[in-house]
C-alpha cells in the first residue's frame, strides 16, 4: 500500500518533469513515457521496497533527455526561422526588383523603337525589323539600348525562375511536414 502511494507520488513528479519537454515531443511521447515510468516503478517495487534511488536515476536520465530534445528542437526552429527569413527577404527583394526590371525593359523597348524610327528617317528603310539585320546602320546608343533590353529580360527571367524555385521549395517543405 505504501509503495502504491509512493509510486503515485513519483508519477506526479514525473508528469511535472515531462512538461519541460518541447510541446511536439510531449504530445508525441508524453503518455507513453509516463506509462513506461509507471511500469518501471511497479516492476522495481515488486523486487525491492525502496524506490527512491531508482526513481532519482530515472528523473535525472529524463532531465538529460529534456536538455537534448530542447537543444534539438532549438536547432530545428532556428533553421526554419533562417529559411523563412530568407524566403521573406527574397520575396520582398523581388517585389522591388521585378517592377524596376519591367520598367527598365519598357524604357529600353521605347528607346529601341525611337532608334528604329530614326534609322527609317535617315536611311529610308521603312521596315522596322530590318534594323536587326543592318546593325552597322544603327547609332552607338542603340547598342546600349540593346544591352539594356536584354539585361532587363534576363533579370525578369531570373526573377521568375527564383520565384518558381522558392514556391517549389515551400511546397516540398509543406509536404515534408
Amino acid at each position, binding site marked *: 500500500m505504501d509503495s502504491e502511494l509512493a509510486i503515485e507520488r513519483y508519477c506526479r513528479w514525473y508528469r511535472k518533469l515531462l512538461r519541460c519537454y518541447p510541446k511536439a515531443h510531449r504530445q508525441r511521447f508524453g503518455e*507513453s*513515457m509516463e506509462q*513506461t515510468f509507471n511500469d*518501471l516503478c511497479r516492476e522495481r517495487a515488486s523486487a525491492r521496497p525502496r524506490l527512491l534511488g531508482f526513481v532519482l536515476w*530515472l528523473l535525472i*536520465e529524463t*532531465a538529460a*533527455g529534456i536538455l537534448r530534445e530542447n537543444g*534539438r528542437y532549438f536547432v530545428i526552429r532556428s533553421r526554419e526561422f533562417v529559411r523563412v527569413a530568407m524566403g521573406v527577404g527574397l520575396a520582398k527583394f523581388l517585389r522591388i526588383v521585378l517592377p524596376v526590371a519591367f520598367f527598365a525593359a519598357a524604357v529600353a523597348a521605347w528607346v529601341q523603337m525611337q532608334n528604329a524610327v530614326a534609322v527609317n528617317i535617315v536611311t529610308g528603310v521603312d521596315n522596322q525589323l530590318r534594323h536587326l539585320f543592318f546593325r552597322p546602320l544603327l547609332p552607338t546608343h542603340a547598342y546600349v539600348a540593346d544591352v539594356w533590353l536584354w539585361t532587363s529580360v534576363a533579370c525578369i527571367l531570373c526573377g521568375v525562375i527564383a520565384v518558381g524555385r522558392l514556391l517549389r521549395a515551400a511546397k516540398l517543405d509543406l509536404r515534408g511536414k
Partner: protein
Amino acid sequence: MAINPRNSPLTPAVLHILLALSTQERHGYGIMKQVESDSQGKVKMGPGTLYGSLGRMIDAGLIRESDKKVDPKMDDERRVYYKITATGQKALAAELQRYREVVTVARQLRLSPTQ
C-alpha cells in the same frame, strides 16, 4: 535530424533498439526490457534516452509505429507498438557488417582471440 545517412555508424542506443525490434514489434517498456536482456544487464536505457531515440528513428524512417494492440500481459490498449522498417533492417545489417569488419581487423592485429 537524420540518423545513418550514407551508412554512418549508429549510436549504441539506436543499435540496441533496432536489435530489440528485429525479432518482433514491441512497446517502449518491452524495448527497454529486451535491450537489458540482450546486453545481459550491461545497457540500461531510461525513458529519456529511449523515447528521444525512438523519435529520431521514426523521423529517419528506421522504425514506425505499429497498429495499437493489447499486450495480454500488460492488459493496456493505449500502448504504442513500434516495428522495424525495411530501411531499419538495412541499417542494422550494414551496422552488423561494419562490426564484423572491425572484429576482422582486430583479429588480424591479434587484438582479439581467433575462433
